[in-house]
């Protein structure tokens, strides 16, 4: 187009950097992955969180009630498959993709200390904490130590022993608060971004709903933690009788067959075992 140029007598013409790329209209798959992340946060993870907190609430009723709940959950049909498909894999995905999201955002709450921006940052840090906590929690409570699916009765005892360490207790408390926040705000975000609450007022009202629900969940969760550490159920037995046929684990049944009134102590120090017996 240009018909003539001034001969460039200039050694170096600066170039403007590229900057943020324009929209890749209709290209790529990030939409589906991001929406899947969003959705998994609600179902199944959010649903599982509610279930978990309700189940934990049984701890307030004591070791036996808690054990029964664990027993019940572990006897759902196809429970191992459900566990992987609806809990572990979604959790893994939501957590890892969430970290990816966190890494790509550039928080600027220092310059713009506005409520929504604080919540944005909080959602990322609570998510990160949740990932660390849940990894630890699943590892220690599900895959290490007493195998609870096989020993549901030992659930209370196992958690109580874990929370005996004040650092771990603090970790649990903080994580409980963080996760309940993350979930409650996540639901609010879901409603906003999926266009369920497209108005200022509807978001404001739904904010209250999510806030109150989050606090209720958090209260229940913290109460459950309290149940494990309070004096009321101090020194819970490792293997209380859940009081119905078949509630024992396979090992227990074997043990019972061998020693009619004996209980097999697998871990723990002798004094605890003694206490456990005394408690019975």
């Amino acid at each position, binding site marked *: 187009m240009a018909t003539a140029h001034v001969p460039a007598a200039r050694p170096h013409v*600066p*170039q*403007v*950097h*590229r*900057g*943020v*790329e*324009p*929209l*890749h*209209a*209709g*290209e*790529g*798959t*990030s*939409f*589906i992955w*991001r*929406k899947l992340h969003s959705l998994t946060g609600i179902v199944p993870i959010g649903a599982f969180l509610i279930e978990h907190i309700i189940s934990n609430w049984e701890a307030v009723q004591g070791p036996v009630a808690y054990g029964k709940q664990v027993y019940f959950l572990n006897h759902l049909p196809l429970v191992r498959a459900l566990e992987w498909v609806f809990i572990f894999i979604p959790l893994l995905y939501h957590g890892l993709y969430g970290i990816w*999201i966190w*890494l*790509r*955002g*550039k*928080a*600027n709450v220092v*310059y*713009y200390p*506005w*409520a*929504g*921006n604080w*919540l*944005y940052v909080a*959602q990322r840090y609570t998510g990160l904490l949740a990932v660390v906590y849940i990894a630890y929690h699943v590892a220690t409570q599900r895959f290490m130590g007493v195998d609870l699916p096989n020993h549901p009765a030992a659930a209370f005892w196992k958690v109580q022993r874990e929370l005996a360490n004040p650092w771990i207790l603090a970790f649990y408390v903080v994580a409980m608060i963080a996760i309940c926040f993350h979930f409650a705000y996540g639901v609010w*975000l879901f409603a*906003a*971004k*999926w*266009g*369920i*609450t*497209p*108005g*200022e007022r509807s*978001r404001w009202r739904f904010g209250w709903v999510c806030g109150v629900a989050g606090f209720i969940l958090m209260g229940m969760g913290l109460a459950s933690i309290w149940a494990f550490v309070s004096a009321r159920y101090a020194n819970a037995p490792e293997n209380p009788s859940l009081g119905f046929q078949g509630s024992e684990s396979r090992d227990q049944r074997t043990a019972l067959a061998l020693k009619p009134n004996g209980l097999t102590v697998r871990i723990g120090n002798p004094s605890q075992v003694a206490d456990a017996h005394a408690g019975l």
Partner: protein
Amino acid sequence: MANRTVQFEIKRQASPDGPAVWERFELEWRPGMNVISAMMEIAANPVTADGRPTTPITYDSNCLEEICGSCAMRINGKARMACSSLVDNLEQPIRLEPLSKFPLVRDLQVDRSVLFKNLMRVKAWVPVDGTYDLGSGPRVYPQQQEVNYPLSNCISCTCCMEVCPQFNEQTGFVGAATIAQVRLFNNHPTGKVLKEDRLRALAGDGGIQECGYAQNCVKACPKQIPLTNAIADVGRDVIGQKVKDWLRG
């Protein structure tokens, strides 16, 4: 008020790859002074506070009435329009920096053309048949006009993009302004004909899904455009479109 002065600290950078330096200026205070008039003053007398000769500041500006969208910059850390930033309302020294999310040209001037490219990618227009006389336009009821008019007030200043934690080179996020324009054109009786195209475009990489709903956009918008509402509405429509496409696919 005779000797009252105003202190400025301005981030200077002679070229995209040059070093950034801060220069201090001390100017005579004048009533009604805004950031633009201060920079005009510096142009007429380009000397720093310590008496060193310097060059006039390079910055974008045009209408100076907060309607052309040119003069967005960071003033005391926050993205806003320089023309409507009155010196008397700002803490001194007033620190001027270029927008941080856009490639720097020089001093306070940045390249914001990405917004115009984005508007092209989402087909932000009403596809009229032609400019010859085809009679009156479609009927639009006042209620509908009242929804569209605020969206149509967007001045392309890019403040909403600058303040968005998600708008950056990693995400390639399209930003709130473009999403609001999609809302506007999808709501127009004729503009609607491209609705599906626009929604599919916004589901691409860097699309609406990258929004983190920090809501900074709506706070920073100098025109009070209901950006978060637009994101919610368009977000729903994009999901609907994707589901529809999937079921029909």
